[in-house]
């Protein structure tokens, strides 16, 4: 009897594991399909329409009707918005990360961490809507900007959106430092702030770099929130308060109107492929940096 039961259980397991293997294999299949098909479609601009890659990347002229889709405007827009977001949100996030790891008493952590989790849960379209209804009018009334749309609005919204990522990763970086470092510094008569700036920050540098790079990766791929406040004008960013465009916003703005197989559609897919490549490069960089540090 026992032998029969055992055989049955083994058979069940065999079937189950087969199923599990299939699921795991599906993941591989999915990756190959997605990356492959996107690469296929995204390179049509260069192979089918015979538009040179170099010009695509660097020409400031986005004149699709004339057969010349230069994407430099959007590339610069993406870089500009991301830069703004990381310059504003990066240090702020690291500071709050230090606060959580070294200074905050338990009660404050109990309040702050759920708040950060809620922030993560808020959909990007809601952040965009908040930017649109709150921030843009504010910018319009208090600065020289005629409409309020532009880099500043998008950058601020994006900075707020990447804060949770930077904060949690920074906090982890500090918490993973051995306590003996802090002890040693304090035993030599340093104040807490001296210990943080002179010992803890330098020691956590690689973890903080990861936090920042992942924040950047998040910013590069963000679409809706900035599309609602950036202005979506196909021009290079002219200061902080003029409307401009980024890769992600351009895709959302023009794709609904693009016909299948047209040059515009191909160009937009090329932009999508470019976004993908940038995101992957950032992640690979993080992995390489991590491996070197350990």
């Amino acid at each position, binding site marked *: 009897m026992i032998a029969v039961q055992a055989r049955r259980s083994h058979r069940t397991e065999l079937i189950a594991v087969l199923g599990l293997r299939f699921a795991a294999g599906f993941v591989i299949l999915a990756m190959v399909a997605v990356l492959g098909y996107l690469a296929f479609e995204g390179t049509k601009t260069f192979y089918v329409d015979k538009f040179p890659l170099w010009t695509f990347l660097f020409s400031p002229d986005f004149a699709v009707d004339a057969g010349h889709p230069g994407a430099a405007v959007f590339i610069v827009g993406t870089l500009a918005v991301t830069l703004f977001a990381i310059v504003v949100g990066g240090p702020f996030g690291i500071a709050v990360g230090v606060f959580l790891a070294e200074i905050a008493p338990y009660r404050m952590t109990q309040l702050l961490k759920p708040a950060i989790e809620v922030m993560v849960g808020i959909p990007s379209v809601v952040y965009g809507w908040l930017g649109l209804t709150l921030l843009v009018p504010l910018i319009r009334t208090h600065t020289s900007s005629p409409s309020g749309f532009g880099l500043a609005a998008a950058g601020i919204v994006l900075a707020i959106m990447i804060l949770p990522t930077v904060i949690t990763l920074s906090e982890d970086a500090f918490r993973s430092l*051995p306590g*003996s*470092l802090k*002890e*040693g*510094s*304090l*035993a*030599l*008569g*340093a*104040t807490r702030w*001296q210990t943080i700036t*002179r*010992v803890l920050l*330098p*020691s956590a540098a690689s973890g903080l770099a990861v936090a920042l790079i992942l924040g950047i990766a998040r910013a590069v791929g963000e679409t809706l929130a900035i599309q609602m406040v950036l202005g979506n004008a196909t021009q290079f960013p002219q200061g902080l308060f003029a409307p401009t465009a980024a890769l992600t916003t351009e895709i959302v703005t023009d794709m609904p109107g693009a016909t299948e197989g047209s040059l515009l559609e191909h160009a937009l897919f090329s932009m999508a492929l470019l976004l993908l490549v940038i995101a992957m490069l950032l992640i690979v960089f993080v992995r390489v940096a991590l491996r070197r540090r350990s």
Partner: protein
Amino acid sequence: MIDAAQPATASTAADKIVARDVDVFYGSFQAIKNASLSMKAEHVTALIGPSGCGKSTFLRALDRMHDLTPGARVEGTILLDGEDIYSPEADPVVIRHRIGMVFQRANPFPKTIYENVIYGPRIHGERNRAKLDEIAERALRQAALWDEVKDRLHRSALDLSGGQQQRMCIARAVALSPEVILMDEPASALDPIATSKIEDLIGQLTEHFTVVIVTHSMQQAARISDFTAFFHLGEIVEVGPTNQIFTHPREKRTEDYITGRFG
């Protein structure tokens, strides 16, 4: 409980640190009960006893390291040159300048050897590069490390061997010209050769500093200390000149520990 008996053969050395009726609590748990001990200037006092008996806890009370542990409480009096280090006017930053500590495991900062050693003087305000260089050399000499690292001062401290790292931590502590150096089992993680280098070092340190050392090795205590205090279950059972403690202990518990009957 038992009074810290003043040894009859006490040198004319002054008391550098005097602890009187010290209690240390972690929350509601009492780790140290009624500890009283006088530590003589420019001599080595060893704290011995079985694991968990409170020697490290007592040591940490001497430079106010318990301030960093939430829930820890120190009561009683601890005097440094006659001044209470726990009085409201006393500043832990100043106290830790005058009383340095070396930990059980070397904890070099991820910086160069030079940066590590001058960390103390720098955070206390010293900026003059020449002066710092001088301090670094003096400290490394006092820690018997200078010859080994003088050509690679600006390389990472993490590249040093375990024993060298620990001596560098001693140099780091000594660079501040403290008056007292507390050592918490400084050689327990090191091999015998590195250990003996550190023991030799301790002998030389008493030229300028008062040393209080926690050790789980009775042989070490016998070799390097002038006075020994025996801890058991959070109390100081007996204190006396090292010679006397090891040859004619007065308390039964001390004798049991020394002869290896427990711990």
